[in-house]
């Protein structure tokens, strides 16, 4: 009988220890889950703060950039442009006193000077963000294409579809700068002869397509090797994300490049 009692006692200990171990395990798991929940919350808040900080930094950087562009634009207009205009005026006054053999050279110089003054005016204008409010986005983009055509090396087409509506000044400025950068990239790298821009105003979004018939490039190679030089691809993506838009660039070596900018229409909240 005593043996039986001892056996029962031992079995009870075994069962009790097993139950306690399982409960301890459950408690450990509960603590882990609870702590992890708090950590998840902390990580979420940290990511949100990081994202807000990045957005703010990007916004500030862009504002400084635009202010710099504006200052340069004014300097070009007020100082360099004025000085060159004065030089042209002085050359005009010398007309009557020049020997005939030098007159041809002088005429060439005056033409070149006139072209330089006009080019400087165009540069100053495109740098100045205020001119967007005068021309509107599609007017500003059209002017950029006209500048390209003036070089004689590009044939450009510009089309607008849909009912044109105005976005906020910040959004239009970002869009314009991105289109400018895309056109600059075409000039620098594409070796193209045709540039086409299409602005498609849809009910819920604006699509801007910039395409060329240049040599194209391997998009994956650019993402891997690109350095942060001015408005690179990553910066264009950052700018677009700031105004809640998207940009996709499709290119194949030898078959040109097409960039599509998509900007959802602003809605009043």
């Amino acid at each position, binding site marked *: 009988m005593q043996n039986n009692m001892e*056996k029962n006692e*031992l*079995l009870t200990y*075994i*069962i009790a*220890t*097993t139950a306690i*171990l*399982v409960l*301890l*395990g*459950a408690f450990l*798991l509960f603590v*882990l*889950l609870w*702590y*992890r929940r708090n950590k*998840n919350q902390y*990580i*979420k808040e940290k*990511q949100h703060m990081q994202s807000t900080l990045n957005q703010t930094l990007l916004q500030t950087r862009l504002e400084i950039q635009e202010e710099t562009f504006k200052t340069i634009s004014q300097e070009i207009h007020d100082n360099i442009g004025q000085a060159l205009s004065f030089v042209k005026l002085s050359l005009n006054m010398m007309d009557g006193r020049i020997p005939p053999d030098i007159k041809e050279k002088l005429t060439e110089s005056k033409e070149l000077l006139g072209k330089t003054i006009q080019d400087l005016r165009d540069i100053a204008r495109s740098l100045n963000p205020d001119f967007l409010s005068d021309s509107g986005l599609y007017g500003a983009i059209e002017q950029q294409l006209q500048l390209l055509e003036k070089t004689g090396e590009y044939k450009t087409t510009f089309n607008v579809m849909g009912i044109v509506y105005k976005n906020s000044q910040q959004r239009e400025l970002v869009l314009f700068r991105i289109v400018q950068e895309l056109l600059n990239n075409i000039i620098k790298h594409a070796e193209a002869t045709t540039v086409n821009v299409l602005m498609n105003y849809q009910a819920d979004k604006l699509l801007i397509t910039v395409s060329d018939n240049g040599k194209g490039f391997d998009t994956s190679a650019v993402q891997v090797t690109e350095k942060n030089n001015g408005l690179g691809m990553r910066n264009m993506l950052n700018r677009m994300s700031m105004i809640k838009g998207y940009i996709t660039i499709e290119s194949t070596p030898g078959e040109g490049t097409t960039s599509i900018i998509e900007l959802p229409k602003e809605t009043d909240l």
Partner: protein
Amino acid sequence: MLKYIVMVYIIIGTIAILISFIASIVQYKKAEPLWLRLFPWYLGFTMTIQLGGYLYSHFLLKSNYFIFNIQQIADFVFWVYVFSKIYKTKGVKVVLSGLAAFAIFFSAYNIFAGEGFYNFNSKTNTIISIILLIFSLLYFAELFMNNNRINYFTIPTFWICTGLFFFNLGSIIYLGLFNYITSHKLDEDGKIYGVIMVTLNILMYALFTIGFFCRTIWKKMSY
């Protein structure tokens, strides 16, 4: 009466593993990560061994301990492979390799020079249970230290490790003292063994089943 009780325990235990086995087959193509596709084979093997072991002893009236001695080593090798796929940290993988090597060597020693092949290798079972507990805890530690936001409930590995953790935690005492209990006839009718093992089996295989389906369940619940 005893045989009836044992039959009931076997049936209940088999149902649990059968449901898990079917679930693993249903989710076979959607199984992610890919090592989850090993589970139908593992569960099928386990079911076969469990039934085969019971039938062997029932019809041949001989000890079936050697079958389970082989099974526990095969199970352990399977879990070592699974955990080697789960762990991300190099240091943890080194610990895994070390413990796995020790367990295998100890099992071989115990069979040839310890408890023997035809006695239930309770020492091997204890060592393996402790090691699998350590493996589970190491996984939880990795999860704990992860710096990304994690939703446990959508991770199959979490459910599977939790099932394994509770099974080994709950069975370690009884199976560790198995030879002592049987030799001293402490649980002659096997009732205590049946209750503990069936409960733990149901818990473990239920958690495995949730692990196979977890992504689907939580996706639907988020709509």
